[in-house]
């Protein structure tokens, strides 16, 4: 009697695999799900591996465009459990490869949702991508991807500052934190240096832009103190960007603007001249 039950139970997995191979995903899912509460299966890497496989196929077939696909979540959890049960077993390498594949889909969904409307999903997916990848390949270095993601996310927050000025301070704090994370990884990152410089510069410009013409003189002087602090904060980052690439137009324009706003007109003129020279060289190259 016990042997009969065991065989019947064993058949669940075998049949699930058969349905999987035949593309009968609903039947495969039904059978593989029915192994959940069966003690014969709950500690077996093979069960979780095939469960992961069935759910991965369901994701591919039915939820490939769903950036928060529930099928994918189950697939990931199943492959992870399979790996935990047998880190060096029969299914481990294939589980890692499947996790890698799923991680890439999650990463692509993070990239696709990195816009002002859906950026929170992008953050969730990016963190999920790292979690999955770390499980499959614990020694993965994410620094390059973190830099890319943080810079792009900071750009989104910059857009949100324009659209939602009420919460600008909150966004600015997040932006500065993201650039600082990038610079902690790579102090020579030109985009982070340039963007940080522009961030402080634009904050100063925003204050001047918003000034009422009827501001009294004491208030005007207080605001001047605030903007000078911001322009001076922007300067070292912009100078670093210049050091990294003296021929980048945006950096030359930035330095010209910062020094102009600091009333250091000789220095502003110097970078304006460099920009003009660059323009001349470029037009000469194009013409020649």
């Amino acid at each position, binding site marked *: 009697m016990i042997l009969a039950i065991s065989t019947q139970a064993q058949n669940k997995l075998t049949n699930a695999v058969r349905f999987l191979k035949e593309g009968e995903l609903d039947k495969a899912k039904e059978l593989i799900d029915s192994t959940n509460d069966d003690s014969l299966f709950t500690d077996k890497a093979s069960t979780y591996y095939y469960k992961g496989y069935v759910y991965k196929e369901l994701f591919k077939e039915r939820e490939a465009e769903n950036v928060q696909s529930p099928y994918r979540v189950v697939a990931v959890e199943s492959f992870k459990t399979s790996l935990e049960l047998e880190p060096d077993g029969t299914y481990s390498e294939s589980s890692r490869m499947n996790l890698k594949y799923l991680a*890439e889909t999650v990463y692509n969904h993070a990239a696709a949702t990195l816009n002002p409307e859906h950026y929170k999903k992008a953050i969730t997916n990016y963190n999920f991508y790292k979690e999955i990848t770390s499980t499959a390949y614990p020694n993965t270095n994410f620094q390059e991807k973190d830099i890319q993601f943080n810079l792009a996310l900071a*750009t989104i927050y910059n857009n949100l500052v324009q659209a939602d000025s009420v919460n600008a301070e909150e966004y600015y704090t997040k932006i500065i934190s993201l650039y600082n994370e990038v610079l902690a990884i790579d102090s020579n990152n030109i985009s982070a240096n340039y963007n940080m410089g522009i*961030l402080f510069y634009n904050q100063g410009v925003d204050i001047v*832009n918003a000034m009422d*013409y009827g501001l*009294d*003189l004491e208030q005007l002087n207080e605001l001047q103190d605030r903007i000078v602090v911001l322009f001076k904060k922007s300067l070292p980052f912009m100078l670093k960007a210049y050091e990294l690439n003296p021929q980048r137009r*945006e950096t030359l324009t930035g330095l010209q*603007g910062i020094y102009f706003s600091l009333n250091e007109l000789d220095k502003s003129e110097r970078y304006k001249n460099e920009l003009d020279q660059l323009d001349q060289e470029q037009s000469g190259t194009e013409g020649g």
Partner: protein
Amino acid sequence: MLTAFHPGVSSQKFDTNAKIKAVFIYNFMKYIEWPKEYNSGEITINILGDNQAIYDELTKMSRVKKISNQSFSVYKIDSPGNVGNPHILYIPEDSTDQLSQALENLDGKSTLIITEAPGLARKGAAINFIVQGNRQKYELNKSNLESRDLKVASVLEQLAVLVN
């Protein structure tokens, strides 16, 4: 093939100094008293030369502000010979060499002369913009104001760098 993220931020093009000077000028208009004959009609501000940034700021300001119910208008003039009899003559730094001729043409007129180059408050300007510690400040020469029958409120004196 993973999708790439695309970072990018751009700087704002905006002449912060021109806006700050416009706010100063509004305060000068508020705290300087012209003789009675200047208190009707519109306040005129003439700018000598072609400083577009300060012209644009003052023009924007003229659309939203008045001084004691007097509206004001801003004009660019191309030479000191066309200076007229404005409430304010603004001489940008690159027109500084025309100050002495402008002074001649404004002899006996109650025009507030504002300049923006070192030393000009001692050469006939009543108010001269200067830079101190990266900030816009202004020198004020009370004798040059009074010689044109202009009276200055104490608040303007207190915050000025006084020049004789």
